[in-house]
């Protein structure tokens, strides 16, 4: 049961990371000196949750998903009709995630070290980084759904 429950943190923390990035975009679009502390909080929160998602997801991937035993998710997918849910979606997802992690580091650097509320261009770069996190993050969620479906298709015999 522990193994199954530990699939939850990766997904939930990832969603939190995306939600905090949306919060950053909204605060930056309406930035003023008064909401700079909230911008700092939201950007830190996005980085914090995306890193938690990375660490939990990475641990689960290495320890459970990809191990060379017949009942690992990877083995089950590759034995079924949706092999590409691993060979495309998982392979792409696990490597695109690194870009998400880099953006999660860049976002608070920009927010903490620049007066976002004073300069339109700095406000825009903040919004751009946040939106890239949102786009990649939502992509991760979609890819994750396809991977889960790949396991299901194998267990259902491809029907």
């Amino acid at each position, binding site marked *: 049961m522990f193994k199954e429950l530990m699939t939850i943190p990766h997904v939930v923390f990832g969603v939190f990371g995306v939600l905090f990035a949306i919060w950053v975009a909204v605060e930056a679009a309406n*930035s*003023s*000196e*008064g909401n700079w502390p909230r911008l700092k909080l939201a950007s830190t929160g996005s980085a914090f949750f995306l890193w938690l998602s*990375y660490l939990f997801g*990475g641990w689960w*991937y*290495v320890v459970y998903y*990809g191990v060379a035993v017949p009942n690992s998710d990877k083995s089950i997918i590759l034995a079924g009709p949706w*092999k*590409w849910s691993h*060979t*495309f979606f998982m*392979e*792409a997802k*696990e*490597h*695109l995630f*690194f*870009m998400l*992690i*880099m*953006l999660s*580091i*860049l976002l608070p*650097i*920009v927010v903490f*070290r*620049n*007066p*976002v*509320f*004073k*300069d*339109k*261009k*700095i*406000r*825009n*770069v903040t919004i*751009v*980084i946040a939106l*890239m996190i949102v*786009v*990649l993050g939502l992509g991760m969620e979609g890819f994750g759904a396809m991977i889960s479906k790949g396991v299901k298709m194998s267990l259902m015999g491809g029907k």
Partner: protein
Amino acid sequence: MEKRSEHHELDKLSIGFALSFLIASLFNGLLIIAKETYAPLKDWMKSLFGHHWTTHGIFVIVLFIVLGYALSKADLGKKIDADKASGLVIAGTVLGGLIVVRFFFKHLFE
């Protein structure tokens, strides 16, 4: 309350890390191609931290951080303003993403 119409330059650390993001994203994609087409590299990466993906992540993130700090020491402020930094972030996301997706795309039709 201060107005946001004033002009402020993006600080050096932000510029360094924005440029580093583009470079590290491209490196991320190229490292996939290298390790997937040259098995000894993948085996070596696996031997370092137990799994090639773990090593891959460490390489990419460490490169991003080290390069970010190094580039922040360079005087890039006159060449890269906040608008160009936005372009670097978009380019890094799109190009880095396309390399990854393009490389694995062939598997969709297997």
